[in-house]
């Protein structure tokens, strides 16, 4: 039983399946193969990247939709790939696409959309308004705490019944990357490793709880992702008054 592939830890299984996606389950001696892999990896011959497909392209698609005027994508393709690399194969395995998309036109500004996970393996990160965000009404305390934890400067304007959120420096990018994207990856990991790709495998509450735990677990063990050069061109003009 100890050598059964079905009892592989997630990380080992993900690594194996990303490297040899079409191998039969019964191929090779696992112990020997892992030893060889480890040696090859140490020697720098084998990388944890997914092998390219026939066209020489990575199987993971990153689709970038240009944002609307007054909006921008806080993270870029390079940020996402670097984060995925730092997490290892557990996050990449089964991930089909990451989309930097526009928010739907009829979405209200009072309910900002950050991200979405669509099973199987599709993560959507929505465009965000250029900071500072001036939101009508008061934020729920949980959201306030989350923003402040991410480095945002939140100012409540009780006289105007509004909330002002500013994202100094690199904080919005870090928030999108290390909070939203990791949260969606958490959904993906839970959903994908159950093997039932198109079936809801946990209650929504449990799914969200797992995604939050995934964020907490990986935030603490993650190195800060360096900001790539030339990143951060703003699409659109001026600030936006939500």
């Amino acid at each position: 039983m100890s050598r059964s592939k079905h009892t592989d830890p997630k990380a080992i299984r993900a690594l194996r399946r990303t490297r040899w996606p079409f191998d039969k389950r019964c191929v090779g001696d696992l112990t020997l193969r892992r030893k060889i892999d480890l040696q090859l990896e140490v020697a720098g011959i084998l990388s944890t990247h997914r092998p390219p497909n026939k066209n020489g392209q990575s199987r993971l698609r990153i689709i970038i939709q240009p944002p609307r005027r007054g909006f921008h994508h806080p993270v870029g393709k390079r940020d996402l790939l670097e984060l995925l690399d730092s997490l290892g194969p557990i996050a990449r395995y089964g991930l089909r696409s990451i989309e930097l998309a526009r928010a739907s036109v009829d979405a209200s500004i009072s309910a900002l959309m950050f991200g979405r996970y669509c099973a199987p393996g599709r993560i959507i990160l929505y465009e965000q308004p250029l900071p500072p965000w001036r939101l009508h009404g008061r934020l729920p305390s949980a959201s306030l705490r989350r923003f402040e934890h991410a480095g945002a400067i939140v100012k409540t304007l009780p006289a105007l019944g509004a909330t002002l959120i500013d994202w100094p420096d690199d904080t919005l990018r870090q928030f999108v990357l290390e909070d939203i994207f990791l949260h969606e990856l958490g959904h993906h990991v839970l959903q994908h490793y159950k093997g039932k790709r198109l079936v809801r495998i946990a209650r929504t509450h449990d799914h969200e709880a797992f995604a939050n735990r995934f964020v907490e677990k990986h935030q603490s063990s993650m190195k800060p992702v360096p900001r790539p050069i030339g990143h951060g061109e703003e699409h659109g003009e001026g600030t936006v008054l939500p």
Partner: protein
Amino acid sequence: MLLVGDGIENPANALTMTHAAAMFGATCRFRDTKGLNLNLENPTLPEQSFHPITRPELQALHSRIIAFDNLPGARDVYGFRAGPDFTVLLGNERRGLSHALASLATDRVQIPMLSRRINCLNVAAASAVALNYLCNPPVGPMATRKDPRSRRPELLLLGACDHFELGSTIRSAAAFGWERAFIEDSHRVWFNCDRGIRAEGRAAARRARNEILLVPCPPASTYNYPQAIVVTRQEIGMPLQRTNFAAGPNHLVVIPDESQIDVTTYDWSRFSPSVKFAHLSLPKTDFPYHYRLVATIALAEISRQVGRPPAAKRPAAPRPPIYDYDLGRIANVAGELVALEDLVGY
């Protein structure tokens, strides 16, 4: 009304199309791309040439051009309202309508076929069905029934004298969903016939993929059906569209070859004690008779009344799970009035 054959290869089919047009008082012309007039060396055909038509002429003649072929998006001919002035286009026997003519069409119409293996009719028979439904007042759509087989009457093809005509009729019967038919072959054109006749008849019936069961019936044998309906071109009995054919397999529909059988004097009592007549609604009574044309029109009408099973509904796949991450609804605060000066100062 104008019937146009596009790229018809077989002169016998072209001639029968001309006769089908004559049945309904329409004219028939051909867009000859397959050397139709060059193939008139067959001594069995009368000396005549087929009137050609070109694409620009066709465009200029009628504003409504109906492509009669099983093209994508084609509507059923049953219940289709064509209006008084139109052109019907029918295509080549094997390849159907050419793109050049299909692109001119303002409407696309087809005859719904029920067989899985025979999905088209003889081109002349199809032209007769087209003109029958487009020239006559519109009928209702094809019936939808849970079990159409329980409403389909038995079919007897009586006294056909031409193997091509009988073969095309058998092909039509299979295409319209009959699984068996009785044949009273008094002229020996189907059973126990010459090898050449047999081969030509089988080819016309597309026997290689036609799975209909043909039951030979001895001439002058008696039957005991509760009711028999005789289909005729003479104005006897009810019009075809107003006769109820969907009475089930206890009923027999007899289609006699009227070039050999006089319907008025024939002894019909041997089929059933109760015999009814149904006639085709034709504007003219004097036209060259073709068994396949009359029979196919009758079979199309019976098929319309018998109907088809409802289209199977595919169960909708469950929606894959989607998880959103958003800010959540912000607590609403009552708005307040702001003066313009304050707003400018802000």
